[in-house]
């Protein structure tokens, strides 16, 4: 369940920690005033939950055959999900790297 990402259940909590993958994020937050800090934390939370929702939707579409012959995940589906999440994050890294390079070139 989504709730696991922010703590609860057996998942590792990802609480108020900066979400990587965006150039320049999660650095130097100690310098900001508390108001801005709170706003930034909220922004990051929004990003993480949005990413999770998209990821969930896409991997579901790509990995779950809608026949529902069984209530458990098949081995194939489980493996597919693991790989799907891993690749999504790789795409995330690639895109943010390329964007960072582009913005450097423009400066």
């Amino acid at each position: 369940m989504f709730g696991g990402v922010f703590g609860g259940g057996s998942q590792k909590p990802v609480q108020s920690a900066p979400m990587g993958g965006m150039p320049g994020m999660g650095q130097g937050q100690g310098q900001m005033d508390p108001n801005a800090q709170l706003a930034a934390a909220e922004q990051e939370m929004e990003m993480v939950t949005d990413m999770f929702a998209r990821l969930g939707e896409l991997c579901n579409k790509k990995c779950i055959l809608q026949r529902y012959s069984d209530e458990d995940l098949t081995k194939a589906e489980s493996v597919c999900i693991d790989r799907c999440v891993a690749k999504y994050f790789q795409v995330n890294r690639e895109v943010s790297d390329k964007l960072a390079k582009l913005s450097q070139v423009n400066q």
Partner: protein
Amino acid sequence: MYNNYGPSYQEQRLQQMMEQKQLKDFMRMYSNLVSRCFDDCVSDFTSNKLGDKELTCVTRCTLKNMKMNERVGQRFAEENAKLMEEQAKLGN
């Protein structure tokens, strides 16, 4: 406004925000689940009651999607932790 309060107040506010977010996301997940299982399982309108096949399908659909969500959440947390480690290394 927040300048007068210590870091524990901020943590409280953050905690509140996270809880609200979790609730909102749970509601959204529930709605999506209903939509998806209806879409995938129901197409026979010769009756206004769900047939046995449809009921079974809906049960399986719900359980399977919940399990999938859970697994995605686990993998997501792992990958995100990895990513943050990398970011932290770059930042130092």
